[in-house]
């Protein structure tokens, strides 16, 4: 396998055969302008310094790397280290990207932000960044997700964002992205689209990865400090895949470190009942990028299901598709029931409520820990906290 330390997509935004820029004509040149602005910003020390200041003093980075001894003992396998993205300000990794892009919007002179959200964590992070920087914020959210993540809807509104429910399609993340893009197409001159994952047209998959790569940089340094060596495996959940890319990034060039993404197995790998793109999908184009997509024989996007709104999405970030094709990353899935068990287990054994998204990483992490055995080191990205999910969990347990 060819090993790459720097994995920028090619000039047209492709990671191998995945990625690109499949957008309506109106967006082509505004996205080219966005790419130029981003590339200039990432080379600008002042931009980096301002983002660094906010990440340290506002977000609370670095987040801890915490060894979960009781959890590891209960699992009966590898030592388990949790990267605590749940302890960031706003409670998930999403803030890393939201602040980076909001600063970029400001730099581009755009004062109106639109964003989509699934679980609400990216919406909350965007609303927070906009409140902090004095930007107008409108968040699109599927009506189904608004019902199951009501706490986050209220949080966004408290932060001054306008939350717009989306009733089309499956009323989940995919439909929220469609609506955010429609808004952007109509107001591309004064509006910045703050996309929340490593999805969409180039340069979003690259840009979001780079804003999230701080997770892996910190985790790599911390695990070396705490244990004196690299982990044997890194596990993260994959909806669009930004927390996973963020933590994988620092380990890509270490071939001995297994990188494992966990998709939502939902109620089982049957059409419409899961969101495991690599288990049930095929290459296609959705929302600006060519990647693995759940689709029918006519190219229509299939319905998805997951107990976790943040993983309930029919496509995966194009870089994941490419890394998988190269054999550098592997993907598994965990179902609703396993995620619920993991949620409760972490709560009882470690006093931590994980997000339902992150609970999928924990659920599969358990089998990886057993497979690796006692002397191994397992790093799991605890991408967010689960306060938003307590009502969903309560009703799921009651059933």
């Amino acid at each position: 396998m060819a090993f790459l330390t720097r994995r920028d997509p090619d000039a047209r935004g492709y990671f191998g055969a995945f990625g690109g820029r499949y957008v309506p004509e109106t967006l082509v040149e505004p996205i080219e302008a966005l790419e130029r602005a981003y590339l200039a910003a990432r080379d600008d020390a002042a931009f980096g310094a301002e983002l660094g200041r906010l990440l340290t003093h506002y977000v609370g980075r670095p987040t801890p790397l915490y060894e979960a001894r009781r959890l590891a003992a209960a699992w009966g396998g590898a030592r388990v280290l949790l990267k605590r993205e749940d302890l960031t300000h706003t409670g998930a990794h999403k803030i890393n990207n939201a602040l980076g892009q909001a600063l970029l919007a400001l730099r581009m002179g755009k004062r109106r932000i639109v964003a989509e959200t699934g679980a609400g964590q990216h919406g909350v992070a965007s609303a927070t960044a906009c409140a902090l920087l004095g930007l107008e914020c409108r968040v699109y959210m599927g009506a189904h997700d608004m019902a199951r993540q009501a706490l986050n809807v209220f949080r966004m509104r408290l932060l001054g964002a306008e939350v717009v429910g989306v009733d089309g399609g499956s009323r989940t993340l995919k439909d929220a992205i469609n609506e955010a893009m429609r808004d952007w197409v109509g107001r591309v001159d004064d509006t910045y689209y703050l996309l929340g994952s490593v999805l969409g047209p180039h340069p979003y998959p690259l840009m979001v990865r780079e804003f999230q790569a701080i997770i892996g940089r910190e985790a790599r340094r911390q695990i070396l400090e705490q244990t004196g060596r690299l982990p044997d495996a890194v596990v993260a959940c994959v909806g669009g895949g930004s927390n996973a890319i963020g933590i994988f990034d620092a380990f890509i060039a270490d071939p001995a470190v297994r990188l494992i993404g966990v998709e939502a197995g939902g109620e089982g790998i049957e059409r419409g009942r899961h969101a495991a793109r690599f288990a049930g999908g095929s290459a296609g184009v959705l929302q600006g990028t060519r990647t693995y997509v759940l689709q029918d024989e006519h190219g229509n996007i299939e319905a998805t299901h997951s107990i976790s709104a943040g993983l309930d999405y029919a496509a995966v970030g194009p870089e994941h598709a490419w890394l998988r094709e190269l054999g550098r990353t592997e993907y598994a899935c965990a179902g609703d029931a396993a995620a619920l068990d993991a949620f409760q287990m972490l709560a009882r054994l470690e006093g931590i409520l994980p997000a339902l998204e992150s609970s999928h990483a924990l659920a599969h992490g358990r089998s990886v820990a057993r497979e690796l055995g006692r002397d191994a080191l397992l790093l799991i990205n605890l991408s967010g906290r689960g306060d938003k999910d307590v009502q969903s969990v309560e009703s799921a347990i009651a059933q």
Partner: protein
Amino acid sequence: MPGGLQRRAMQPAATPPRRGGPRSAWTGRRAADVRGAAMSRLAATFARLRAGGQPGLVTFTTAGDPDLRLSGEILGALDRGGADVLEVGVPFSDPLADGPVIQRATERALASGSNLTAALGLIARLRPGLSAPVVIFSYANPLLRMGVDEFARRAAGAGVDGVLALDLPIEEADSFRETLAGRGLDTIFLLSPTTSDARIRKAAALGRGFLYGISRLGVTGARDRVADGASEMVQRIRAHTDLPLALGFGISRPEHVAEVNACADAAVVGSALVSLIGEAGHSPDVVDRVEAYVRWLKGAATPKGTTHANA
């Protein structure tokens, strides 16, 4: 497969139809104006419009809205009513460039069982009876899912004249365009108010048939008036190319058609027509209403170069 399906692809370049000849099953009434088979049916249509100083009208409807049978009858009515180009939308689950009216049409069409295969079947069945050229209007994924080679083969067989893939901009369309051209199909590109002069030149060099200008930002949808920037945009495009230009977005009334035709080769009516179909539901009089609507749109537009009547 009906015998007619392969005829267009197989027709040799050597036998241009006789001027004033009978309606041909595959070239339609525009055959009289085809000066050589190298000229596509779309090129011939726009050449005829320009030569006669006639206002052009392009219609958009979704294949299978409200169902495949009525949708076929609607296309026939549009053709009879005087539409110069028939754009046939392929329903797709995630129409992110469309406003609510066409989103609803897409949902109705999907619910009726329509998809790309059905749309091509519909066109193949109707083609012999239609005069106007037919353009497939689709999001990229259904086309890519079928496979571009296979799609081009089937589309050419069905008698499709051109293809516009909404989220396949010039930069992503190289092999798509070449494959289509290999089957005699025109690839049509969109131009938007955000398109730079450099990319207008690119689209003009690579596009075939006509260019489709959208006169304002935003998703599809009817408006009370044509965007103010429309004529300015046409002038900007005209500075770079002589390709026929159809201008769309927001057109619903004869005076819009007239206004657009004062500067472009044709006006595109989409959401307003689709609204009418949506309101009619499955009532059979939808076919007559559509035909009357198109006649109304077309009729009030006076020939180019004369003063426009105010409707």
